């Protein structure tokens, strides 16, 4: 692994999608948990916990998509046209998630709020699931023809392993969202979320263990990569420790540390995923020769260099003001007349 521009962009695209998971992950998680409470004030509190920030969080996905387009146009083209219906469903889910947050509070009628509550929750749940399924397919490998085009079908994407990754992603987001919710709320809802968070942690751990076993058993090239590069085990170990640390911190009511551990779990999972994939971006099955790699699918070195300058200028500024904005909206949610 030499650190050329292609590798740097492989890492940067990974960073953008990991950033997306850590940030919008809790928004989607809150959404998935939304319908579990029936009380309007509690639902409002949940929505307002993510209200000021979800929009900025979603930009990580938009920018990740843009970066993929710019740095690896062939991957963007093949995956987006290949997973056509899956992406249309993802877009529909993201649309409902987005507009439901805005629309819900604008009318007091019960049917109105119920309708957008379902839109918000289903949109969040399906978004997380589909993102996980897409990731799972990339990890498993997808049929790519000699022409670099996707050679499979929509139903062919819904096989057990990708679905397992999808469910695990939902579990991860729900856990992440529940912990975030615990940090942002107080009173009865806070206590309720504490119980849900514990259940979500258990749900996620079961999924994670199952997924790890399934990966080692059924995705032989993943196991082989680990076998060839034993140092990768340190990341797997870090991942396991991060996951194990979540319930520990949470139990001691150090919610912020539990949240950070959950972020660390996401980072290490994405690292494992990336290191197993590298230097491929889309691994082709059954014919690995057709795989899209960071070299045959990339933009020119000049463009990658220009993009690096853009990212170098833009990303630090973005992180700086994002931190400021989170700081402005720190603390427990208080509903006022500006709230959703």
């Amino acid at each position, binding site marked *: 692994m030499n650190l050329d521009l292609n590798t740097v962009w492989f890492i940067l695209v990974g960073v953008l999608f990991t950033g997306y998971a850590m940030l919008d992950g809790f928004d989607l998680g809150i959404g998935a948990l939304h319908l579990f409470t029936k009380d309007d004030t509690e639902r409002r509190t949940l929505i307002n916990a993510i*209200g*000021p920030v979800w*929009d*900025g969080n*979603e*930009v990580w*996905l*938009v*920018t990740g*998509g*843009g*970066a993929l*387009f*710019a*740095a*690896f*146009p*062939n991957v*963007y*083209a*093949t*995956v*987006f*046209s290949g997973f*056509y*219906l899956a*992406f*249309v469903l993802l*877009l*529909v889910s993201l*649309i409902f998630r*987005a*507009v439901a*947050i*805005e*629309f819900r509070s604008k*009318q007091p009628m019960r049917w109105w709020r119920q309708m957008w509550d379902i839109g918000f929750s289903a949109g969040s749940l399906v978004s997380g699931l589909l993102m996980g399924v897409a990731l799972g397919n990339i990890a498993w490998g997808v049929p790519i023809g000699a*022409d*670099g*085009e*996707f*050679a499979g079908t929509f139903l062919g994407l819904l096989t057990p392993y990708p679905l397992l990754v999808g469910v695990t992603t939902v579990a991860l987001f729900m856990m992440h969202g529940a912990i975030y919710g615990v940090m942002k709320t107080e009173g009865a809802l806070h206590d309720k979320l504490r119980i849900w968070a514990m259940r979500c942690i258990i749900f996620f751990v079961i999924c994670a263990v199952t997924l790890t076993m399934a990966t080692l058993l059924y995705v032989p090239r993943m196991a082989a990569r680990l076998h060839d590069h034993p140092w990768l085990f340190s990341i797997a170990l870090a991942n396991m420790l991060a996951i194990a640390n979540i319930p520990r911190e949470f139990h001691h009511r150090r919610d912020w540390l539990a949240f950070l551990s959950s972020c660390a779990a996401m980072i290490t999972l994405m690292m494992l995923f990336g290191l197993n994939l590298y230097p491929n971006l889309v691994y082709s099955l059954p014919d690995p020769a057709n795989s899209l790699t960071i070299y*045959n699918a990339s*933009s*020119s070195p*000049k*463009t990658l260099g*220009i*993009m690096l300058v*853009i990212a170098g200028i*833009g*990303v630090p500024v*973005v992180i700086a*003001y*994002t931190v400021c*904005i989170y700081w*402005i*909206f720190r603390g427990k949610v208080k509903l006022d007349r*500006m*709230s959703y």
Partner: protein
Amino acid sequence: MDVLTLARIQFGATIAFHYLYPPLSIGLGVMLVCMEGLWLKTKNPVYHQMARFWTRVFALTFAIGVATGIVMEFEFGTNWATYSRFVGDVFGSALAAEGIFAFFLESGFLAVLLFGWDKVSRKMHFFSTCMVCLGAHFSAVWIVVANSWMQTPAGYKLVMHNGVERAEITNFWQLVFNPSFMERLSHVLCGAWQAGAFLVVSVSAWYLLKKRHQDFARASLRVGLTVALVASLVQVVTGHVSARGVAKNQPAKLAAFEGLYNTTSNAPLVLVGYVDEKDQRVKGLEWPGMLSFLVGFNTQTTVIGLNDFPPSDRPPVTASFLFFHGMVGIGFAMIVIAALGFLYFRHGSLHERRWLLWILVFSVLGPQMANQLGWFAAEVGRQPWIVYGLMRTPAGLSAIVKANAILTSLILFTLIYFLLFAVFIYLLNDKIQHGPDEQDLIPSGKLALPTELTHHPKT
């Protein structure tokens, strides 16, 4: 229907719907900056009330803009995969820059704009409003960079990559400042400012008609009409410069706009009429020599006609002609409306002229229609190319996508967008009926005004 037609309809429909909202966000962003700036300067609480009210409308348009905008970014890959491979090196950079420089700025500070009223100081809030507005403008900048590159490609070279030809960047700044970029950006931004300003004008005029919230309405009209008039007048200049650019860079497009078949000097400008494609001429009212004059400031300037291009390289003439002339006609109507409104407002007799107030109420539709028609003209006029002179539209299509997949998505998006539009109109109407909040005349929290100022504006 074949895959190509479906893909074009689906893309066109989703982008047309999306394009109702970003101009409103950009234009209302400018209005919010004006209102909050005036509040900071004059400390008149009615400006605070205005900023609050229009922020709520802004939030509504922004939400739909974001929700429908993310679709666009995915659709280059889903519908136009071959195109994406061809232009990714160039076009993708502009989209990624849009994300990093525009969307983060816009959505980050939107949090403070919407929810930070009581949490930050007045100056910090004003700064956030400016940043949201700036972010919205940046997003226009980068998307117009990308689209203008498709109209007038520059700063690239064609290279074989894995046995397929594609465009690669040779000079980033030439790419950004491609020949049509500046004029098209200014034209798009003016259109967006008009959209925002006329929305404010329309709602305020309606309040005056109904004799509701009259102080609020008058103050809003003052800001709205000023921006509307300035933007409408400047729009003539940017439109003229854009059209000259089209004459130079995309002569077939200009010929289609004007229905001009034979290359000629003393070319006429069509005022009203239609194109008879069979007879290859325009039937209607023409202004002799004016097109030549506009293109070269001289009636003897030669304007290239469609017959200089093989039929396979010509855009659809009737559609381009109608879209273009529709846009221009509305553009001039907006100037008249804004000028009348402005003059009578200054004269102090606007509230007595109910006919004009009614026209102002409906004026909100003008910029929206002109913006839509303008984009249609720009994109249809570029045909048969997806990247002008480099790649034809059918060649950019995704190779493996089936017609039924696109049809499914078309039906799905159409249904959802109809729902969104109905809800948008319903909620917008609801906000307008509800009107500005009286308690917004008394700013709260850290924004609270010094006590010596009156809480009630003079009536």
